[in-house]
């Protein structure tokens, strides 16, 4: 009913290796992308429903896209390569501050390069902090990345050069000028983020299916066995650190430049790290789709819970709603981890299997 696969034959190796081998999946993804890239701007243009408001873009979609990107980055390291990292916030911060400093000190360079170079600096630092992962594993590595988090928190606050000796420690992003086109309206900034996220999601998805991704997964599943099979742990682990930090750094630069506009070191503190880690745990370790689902759960659900009482005209004080929020989200996380420890991506996987077999399950 939902998936009628009969008649879909694969006649080439390329077709067999496609990211979405089923035509129905492909269609849904294409339609979704079409909606995201063309439908949304049209809805916004003609002020249809909630899409006429800035809030849906500035308040929900832009942060959602950027944090999804950060979650994809962390998922490469933690989900695919098995290296637990508690330093995602710090790497976002490195991307943001590096982009800021480059924009400040190299005038005349296009904004796009700042953001990518921010990711590049973050990748270099990621490699540096990835070196200990060759010797230490599991929770001990988590502690080492936690050290990176606190070290960079300290750097952002204490080293004056990083913030251009700003008296308050807070810095401002430059104008969002992409080769002469200024992203000013919320819809423009949404499209910028969407483009970054789409490109990196496609790249990441293909990377994890390829040679490198298989090496990472081999290391994750059993590093000694992988080494015996000829996979170099040094290369596999450091590439995972570098690529993961690069994506997280780009996400950080976007978070600072596109979302906040002006930020302080506190924007990239340990809370951000744990938030992103929760996203990939809830969404599903080792899944690109899971990164998005986790980001939706962690970011959008609390906002929805916030909005629900007023939608029904019920007057509830904000502290009650906020505390309820903690209770509900906390309980849902616990329930999810008990009933499906592998996250939303796995839930979707099961649902898809059932949909494919329906109505004749066996």
């Amino acid at each position, binding site marked *: 009913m939902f998936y009628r696969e009969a008649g879909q034959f694969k006649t080439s190796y390329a077709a067999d290796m496609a990211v979405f081998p089923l035509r129905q999946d492909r269609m849904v993804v294409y339609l979704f992308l079409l909606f995201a890239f063309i439908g949304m701007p049209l809805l916004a243009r003609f002020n249809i429903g909630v899409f006429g*408001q800035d809030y849906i873009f500035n*308040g929900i979609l832009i*942060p959602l896209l950027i944090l999804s990107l950060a979650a994809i980055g962390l998922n490469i390291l933690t989900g695919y390569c098995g290296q637990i990292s508690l330093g995602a916030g710090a790497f976002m911060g490195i991307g943001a501050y590096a982009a800021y400093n480059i924009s400040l000190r190299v005038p005349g360079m296009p904004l796009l390069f700042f953001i990518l170079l921010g990711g590049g600096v973050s990748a270099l630092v990621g490699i540096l902090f990835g070196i200990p992962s060759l010797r230490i594993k599991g929770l001990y590595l988590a502690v080492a990345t936690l050290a990176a988090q606190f070290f960079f928190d300290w750097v952002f*606050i204490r080293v004056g050069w990083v913030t251009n000796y700003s008296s308050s420690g807070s810095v401002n992003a430059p*104008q969002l000028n992409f080769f002469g086109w200024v992203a000013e309206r919320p819809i423009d900034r949404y499209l910028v983020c969407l483009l970054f996220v789409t490109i990196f999601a496609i790249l990441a998805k293909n990377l994890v299916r390829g040679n490198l991704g298989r090496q990472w997964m081999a290391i994750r599943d059993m590093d000694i066995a992988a080494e015996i099979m000829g996979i170099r742990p040094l290369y596999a682990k450091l590439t995972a650190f570098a690529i993961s930090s690069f994506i997280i750094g780009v996400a950080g630069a976007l978070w600072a430049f596109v979302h906040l506009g002006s930020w302080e070191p506190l*924007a990239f503190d340990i809370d951000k790290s744990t938030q992103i880690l929760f996203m990939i745990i809830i969404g599903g370790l080792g899944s690109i789709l899971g990164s998005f689902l986790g980001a939706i759960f962690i970011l959008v659900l609390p906002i929805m819970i916030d909005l629900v009482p007023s*939608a029904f005209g019920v007057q509830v*004080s904000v*502290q009650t709603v906020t505390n309820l929020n903690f209770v509900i989200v906390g309980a849902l996380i616990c329930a999810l981890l008990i009933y499906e420890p592998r996250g939303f991506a796995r839930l979707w996987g099961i649902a898809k299997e059932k949909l494919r077999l329906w109505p004749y399950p066996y």
Partner: protein
Amino acid sequence: MTRTRLALAVAALTVGATAIAEPAMAQNEQFFPSLVYRTGPYAPNGVPFADGVADYWTLINERDGGINGVKIVFEECETGYATDKGVECYERLKGKGPTGAAYFSPLSTGITFALTEKVPGDKIPLLTQGYGRSESRDGTVFPWNFIALGSYWTAADVAVQYIAKEMGGLDKLKGKKITLVYHDSPYGKEPIAALEARAKKDGFTFKAVPVTHPGVEQKSQWLSIRQDRPDYVLLWGWGVMNSTAIKEAAAVAYPRDHMIGVWWSGAEPDVTPAGDQAKGYKALMLQHGPGEFKVHQDLKKYVISKGKGAAKDDFAQVLYNRGLINSMIGVEAVRTAQEKFGKKPLTGEQIRWGFENLNLTEARIKELGFEGMIKPLKFSCSDHQGADVARVQQWDGKNWKTISDYFTADQSVLGPMVKEHAAKYAKEHNITPRDCSKSS
């Protein structure tokens, strides 16, 4: 099973979507957003302020039937003092009501910095009473910011003047040691520039000691203060950091009457947790202190006794009163704007004009029931602070007692700093400062 789950998911989404697309409000209403924090480590200070803000708006509705008949509608949004949540709240509330939000008062320096970048595009004024960017006093570069009553630089300057008076004159400051214990965030860092400038001018040794957010861990800072023995300690804390600082000062036997808090470190929630150890602790006043004035009688009559008030034990406390003043300035700005644009709901741009032309004279303040709380306040195109005075109060174990007269901040030090920092901001943002001789 899948279908019921799917149905549930669809239902949840629909609810969420309708929640965002709220029904349009009645027409003769002005929407006032309120960014609050009633939870988290800063809630003890956030709650009384939010209560004061809300109760004054309720008073205007209950007693006067709104601002010249235009009803106030307000909505709170919880920020938890986090910048990203504050930005989300701002986006959520800015478009509500028939004409959009009147003005924002985030009560957080971090959120103020982020919103300063956003308000010029959305054309909504930002009323930051006694906090925020000190250089935003310069209205030619920051047309949308109104740093009413005083900035951190004002506070730092007044604190130094008070210390000098205690010691018997500005010339006695030479060679003395003043240490600043500050919340390590834009909020705590703001006064450093002004204190360094004063240190250079008056010849005292200035040292800044940071405390990490949220400020419950400051043992090492106070040990270093014990070694260093500064003559005075200035405290720039917020929330739980303040009471912790007082307790730690007591632990290293640093005299509390040589500690001076900023006006955000001088309220009841800052001293009561420290008990007797807080006795003698001093703090600056953002002009006003705690206690009941004429406006409080009206509040009791029209709001509290009818059960419509938000206040509980915090009625007439320092931060509650500050919330009242914050709302009063905002409401009066709207009233001023109504004189020009008509008695109807106004846009943020029109209300900005109201702020800029706000003139709270002594007579008007008396009429509003705020006599004794604040001195006259007058904004202008170039001056978005409007006042330069502060007093000092002392905690006697039960109450805050005003112990000084008004000090006026030294403009010969601060004026050039405001100009210089504002010019730097203007250059970074490609802003051409407005010409105040031309605009009305």
